[in-house]
């Protein structure tokens, strides 16, 4: 039954004639040509570009990392000087955090949340498009700066006063601060799209208790972004103002304070870790269910754990500041909080293990990545518990131990699930399967290379090697482990090359993917691979948590949505009862144009504060044109209009 279920909802439609289906498809498709390409508001196209762009930044960040490992491979190496090395590790951190980890998770959400909730498109599709273009602009901006020797060189958390007006001459620090602005705008807008989609565009019958765990994770993450990112935006704005117009936020001599920066930054920076980590958890749940041939054990516990993690994530920022002289009592509180947050994650891990234990396992590449996650993330989580202790932290803080820890949690907790999810969803996105053989090579090389590269760093840190040093003296005996680590890094590079090879080859010659190659139970597998422009020819009606696995009772699909207009079905927040036929806007170039205008304003403001003023004029014009309704569209809308 579970295998026959998907075919029920495939095109050809169950109620539309073939010409109507063609019209529906035409209605939702992009206009042809380069302009049509720039004007798309199809969440699948936006997300695909998003993912590819983020992956390119991942590769660039990886190259920077390789450069660092080369420099550190032996003591007193003179491959890179301190000036270039400082730029490189700052670029690496900033790229991976702001241009890869956060946006790629949102990108996957932009692609799959609408599909998993059975919507024909994401909410506010033009905003989603703008969010992509502005992130692209920010990334290009950062790397152009790097090429022009304006690469930031103050570390990815840019502590003042080093990043302040006196100790960072030139524009490098401003460049970093403005890159933050770009990426934050992108992340915040994408979050709004995701929240609205989850709350209002779910297929009828998908009550809150039937939302797939990945969608829950994306929703929780989106809310975390809403509350976390403003902190760093405020901080980086203060930094720019200190540097450009002489404010004194971080100037102790004039009433400012250097620690204000650290408080604001880490109030964002720690939730950031979970903003990256929680979507990974959602991906794991999506993968484990089909590969264990059963629903995830303990759905309510999983959801509550996600939410608990999100709340606790805002209560631990000070554990990044244990070496400063903040009050000791406060420190103990943050120790407790930092240890408590391990519990929700533990709950989820145990639930997954229970799921595997009681399931029928299908050992394919996605599941391998899940198992890799278990090994790496648990290890990283445990070192995290160590770092939560004030006194132990004073020894390992700011050493290579921390470098090891953060890579264990971020690569283990985000990148491994992401790769697994990529192998899992690639057939849906492209209509072709990835090669299983290359996939296994890719996984094992990555897994082994990763541990060889990063495990020794724990020991290096305990042996006194601080992070962010461009070289180290031979007599301290750090050479061997650093060399080992560099070899591991090379292995990772090989593995990533295999991955690229796998994608390129499979795109051309990969086996054609059926609609539901893994026999999964969630809605994205109910439509064709790749999905049609309208996602679902017949908007499905949901009767359970794993719709494709469970029998349907009562109505199975929605009729009455226009085929000549982009109508989506809006449902109620809790019970997902049909509520509205909302006509979505047509494809438009204005989000792209607006992103250009906004970028011009941001870049200009680095060189002259007044650029904010005169730069705002084109922005206002572009946004007005964006909002202004077209006559043809309005006529369509009027024809379909029904007052509430």
């Amino acid at each position, binding site marked *: 039954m579970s295998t026959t279920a998907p075919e029920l909802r495939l095109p050809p439609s169950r109620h539309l004639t073939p010409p109507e289906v063609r019209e529906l498809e035409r209605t939702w498709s992009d206009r042809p040509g380069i302009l049509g390409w720039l004007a798309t508001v199809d969440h699948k196209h936006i997300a695909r570009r998003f993912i590819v762009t983020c992956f390119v930044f991942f590769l660039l960040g990886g190259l920077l990392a390789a450069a660092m490992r080369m420099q550190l491979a032996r003591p007193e190496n003179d491959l890179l000087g301190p000036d270039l090395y400082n730029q490189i590790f700052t670029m690496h951190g900033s790229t991976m955090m702001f241009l890869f980890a956060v946006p790629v998770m949102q990108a996957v959400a932009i692609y799959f949340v609408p599909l998993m909730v059975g919507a024909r498109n994401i909410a506010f599709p033009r905003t989603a498009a703008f969010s992509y273009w502005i992130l692209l602009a920010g990334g290009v901006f950062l790397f152009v700066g790097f090429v022009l020797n304006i690469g930031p060189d103050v570390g990815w958390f840019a502590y003042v006063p080093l990043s302040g007006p006196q100790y960072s001459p030139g524009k490098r620090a401003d460049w970093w601060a403005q890159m933050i602005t770009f990426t934050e705008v992108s992340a915040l807008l994408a979050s709004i799209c995701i929240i609205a989609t989850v709350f209002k565009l779910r297929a009828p019958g998908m009550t809150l208790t039937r939302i797939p765990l990945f969608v829950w994770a994306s929703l929780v993450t989106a809310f975390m972004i809403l509350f976390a990112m403003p902190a760093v935006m405020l901080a980086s704005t203060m930094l720019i103002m200190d540097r450009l117009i*002489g404010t004194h936020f971080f100037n102790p001599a004039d009433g400012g304070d250097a620690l204000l920066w650290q408080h604001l930054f880490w*109030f964002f920076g720690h939730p950031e870790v979970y903003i990256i980590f929680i979507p990974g958890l959602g991906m794991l749940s999506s993968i484990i269910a089909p590969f264990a041939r059963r629903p995830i054990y303990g759905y309510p516990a999983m959801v509550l754990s996600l939410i608990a993690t999100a709340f606790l994530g805002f209560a631990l920022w000070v554990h990044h500041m244990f070496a400063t002289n903040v009050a000791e009592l406060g420190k103990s509180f943050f120790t407790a909080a930092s240890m408590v947050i391990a519990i929700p994650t533990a709950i989820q891990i145990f639930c997954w293990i229970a799921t595997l234990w009681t399931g029928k396992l299908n050992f394919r590449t996605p599941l391998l990545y899940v198992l890799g996650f278990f090994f790496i993330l648990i290890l990283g989580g445990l070192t995290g518990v160590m770092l939560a202790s004030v006194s132990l932290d004073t020894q390992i803080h700011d050493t290579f131990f921390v470098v090891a820890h953060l890579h264990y949690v971020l690569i283990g907790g985000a990148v491994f699930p992401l790769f697994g999810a990529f192998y899992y969803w690639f057939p849906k996105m492209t209509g072709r399967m990835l090669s299983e053989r290359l996939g296994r090579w890719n996984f094992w090389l990555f897994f082994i290379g990763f541990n060889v590269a990063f495990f020794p760093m724990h020991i290096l840190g305990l042996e006194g090697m601080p992070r962010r040093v461009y070289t180290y003296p031979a007599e301290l005996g750090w050479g061997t482990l650093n060399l080992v680590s560099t070899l591991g890094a090379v292995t990772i590079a090989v593995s990533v090359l295999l991955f690229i090879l796998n994608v390129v080859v499979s795109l051309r010659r990969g086996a054609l993917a059926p609609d539901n190659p893994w026999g999964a139970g969630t809605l994205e597998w109910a439509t064709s691979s790749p999905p049609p422009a309208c996602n679902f020819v017949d908007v499905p009606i949901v009767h359970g948590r794993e719709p494709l696995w469970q029998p349907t009772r009562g109505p199975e699909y929605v009729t009455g949505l226009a085929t000549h207009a982009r109508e989506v079905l809006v449902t109620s927040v809790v019970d997902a009862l049909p509520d509205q036929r909302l006509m979505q806007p047509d494809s438009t170039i204005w989000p792209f144009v607006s992103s250009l205008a906004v970028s011009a304003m941001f870049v200009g403001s680095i060189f002259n504060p007044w650029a904010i003023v005169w730069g705002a004029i084109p922005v206002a014009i572009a946004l007005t044109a964006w909002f202004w309704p077209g006559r043809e569209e309005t006529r369509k809308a009027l024809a379909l209009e029904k007052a509430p």
Partner: protein
Amino acid sequence: MNDARAAVEPRRRRQRPAPADGTALDVRELPSYGFGDHSLMWWGTWGIILIEGTVFALAVMAYFYLRTRVANWPASVDYPGPLWGTINLVIVLLSAIPNVWAKRAAEARDLPDVRKWTWVLLAIALATIAVRFLEFKSLNVRWDSNAYGSIVWTLLGLHTVHLLTDAYDTAVLAVLLVTGPLEGKRFSDVAENALYWNFVVAAWVPIYAVIYIAPRVI
């Protein structure tokens, strides 16, 4: 309106009624827009409000954090002159009334009233902006004289940005209501614009307190 509908009528008739076997759920009679939490844009607006509310809250926290770093506050400058700020407080609070009327008119889909109140609101917004520039003059401190000046200017600046954006927003809406093209959805746009203005009003009260009262009492 009717001729417009007539133009599309044939296409809609092409859609056969839902099959009677109970496998289909027909939604063609559902409304095509709504107000409050029925409207998608209402959720979008709330998203923006949450983000900007967080920024305000953090800026206020920064204000009090910086206050703890120095002995006397405001450091070596006069208190901000309360006159214009208070006037602005009054204007902004009063503006809540026409704002409510605009929202009601929108929900009643009463186009003439919606037009009227939108223009009134625009006028009020412009007035507050004008007063706001006098406020900057009466702060008695420059943004670059010390950290106190920096944070006060930032708070006031942040709120001013909201006045400007909402004024522009209202202006565009007001013009659109006159020129068209119009559809029912525009009424919910007006309602959401009113919601956003309520946020700008609500935000000004604590910020006013921090800028003008806090230095005198802490």
